[in-house]
């Protein structure tokens, strides 16, 4: 079994604890019992819209620091956020260049750390290092756990639940680094939704951006919300009961933006929350009370189903 280290990032623990609970539940003893542990010294990935945008040296250093922690434990990083994925994955690519690695290690030495990558075992005298692997939760669910196992554990009937899947840009692009899914026709989250027994509905401009990324939400929130509004109009037209995403920042954007343009809104959740729901968790543990858009309509439909 692949050893993983949880990387929850900043948004989940501090805004959507229900997502953290669901992920731990799905990956833990009550779920698929993966080999995954916490590394308490992790910091912010750091967030690409701020650090990668303003000073790449600082971004790479802070990301490398996180990577050394996983490296020392010989674990793959399991991210639950598209932003953390893109930031850490890009950093491992940068560190493949010996010049970058040398520069980073000269500064990391000030805090007693060194990035080498993980040494492969049993390769003779010459040690071969592999970059620290960074995985997205959706990728781990699809490739490590498998859709059949997900389907086998889905006991709560979700058949009547119509789900609009939103992938989020940094799950798909840039394809220079991200090669998890087909960037033009991604399928993984849809398949997990279907394996959970729910129905994934198609809608117009499904692959469009939620509007939050790159600092747009922080800088011109009206612009970010206007992009979200377009998405929500299309999602509502498809008759979806909820929006499911793999990214907590997209979740935050859908959740917060909707109150600016609609009264009720469409409930939004992370794919791990839907999985936990399908696997029979008590909905109270999903932490929906921290979401701005109430999940009542969805839960009512579930009870009726």
């Amino acid at each position: 079994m692949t050893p993983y280290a949880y990387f929850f990032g900043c948004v989940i623990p501090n805004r959507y604890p229900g997502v953290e609970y669901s992920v731990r539940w799905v990956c833990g003893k009550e779920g698929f019992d993966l080999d995954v542990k916490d590394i308490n010294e992790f910091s912010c990935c750091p967030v690409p819209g701020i650090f990668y945008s303003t000073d790449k040296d600082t971004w790479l250093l802070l990301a490398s620091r996180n990577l050394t922690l996983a490296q020392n434990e010989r674990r793959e990083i399991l991210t639950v956020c598209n932003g953390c994925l893109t930031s850490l994955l890009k950093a491992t690519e940068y560190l493949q260049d010996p010049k970058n690695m040398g520069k980073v290690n000269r500064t990391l030495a000030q805090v007693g750390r060194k990035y080498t990558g993980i040494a492969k075992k049993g390769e003779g005298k010459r040690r071969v290092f592999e970059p620290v692997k960074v995985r997205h939760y959706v990728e781990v669910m699809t490739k490590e756990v498998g859709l059949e196992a997900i389907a086998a554990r889905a006991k709560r009937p979700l058949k009547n639940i119509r789900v609009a899947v939103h992938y989020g840009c940094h799950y798909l692009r840039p394809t220079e680094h991200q090669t998890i899914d087909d960037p033009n026709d991604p399928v993984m989250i849809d398949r997990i939704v279907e394996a959970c027994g729910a129905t994934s509905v198609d809608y117009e401009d499904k692959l469009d951006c939620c509007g939050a990324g790159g600092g747009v939400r922080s800088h011109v929130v009206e612009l970010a919300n206007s992009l979200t509004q377009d998405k929500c109009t299309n999602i509502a037209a498809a008759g979806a009961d909820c929006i499911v995403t793999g990214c907590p920042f997209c979740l935050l954007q859908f959740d917060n933006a909707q109150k600016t343009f609609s009264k009720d809104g469409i409930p939004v959740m992370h794919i791990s929350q839907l999985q936990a729901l399908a696997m029979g968790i008590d909905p109270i543990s999903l932490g929906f009370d921290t979401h701005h858009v109430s999940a009542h309509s969805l839960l009512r439909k579930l009870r009726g189903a």
Partner: protein
Amino acid sequence: MGEAEKTFLSGLHEKLVEEKVIDESQLDPGFAKEIAKYGGKDVMTCLQCGNCTGVCPISLKIDYKTRSIIKYCQFGLRTYTLGTRWVCATCYRCYEHCPADINPAEVMIALRHIAVREGNIPPFVKIAATNLVKYGQSVKPDPEIDKIRKELGLDEVHSKHPEYKTVLREIAVLIHATKYDKLIGIEEEVKV
């Protein structure tokens, strides 16, 4: 007019139309090189095909046309490009559709690097960086959420552990080493 358009009334295009004539004093011939220094590819090789604008979700909404910005970079129109608000969502669609492999999103990121070095620092950058220095996370902890964590039976956020002080110290040392604290003006937060 929608809210988004209103916030962008003083757009790039309007500014150019208003002033009509651009004289040589506004052009910086070294601008393309400066962009490359911060990781952008050579903007001079842009074909001006417009694919980037066509796929840009922001270009659909407001007066922000990726192709035009790349063109202004070629001219070396510093003030116009650096004055652009940070509205690129870094969705990287332009990168996927660029036949010249310019990666316009990375050009926008290089422009932000230059803007910050000219003192044009949006407040949210300072806030996020300050949070990182104080809490190790760019999102500020919320006591209400901490309560719900407890109710759910989750442990305290790990950045609250007393041992996390060593992590904060490491972060401060690294941020100080790259002079990032000075660059964005958060020196008083970073104690090394």
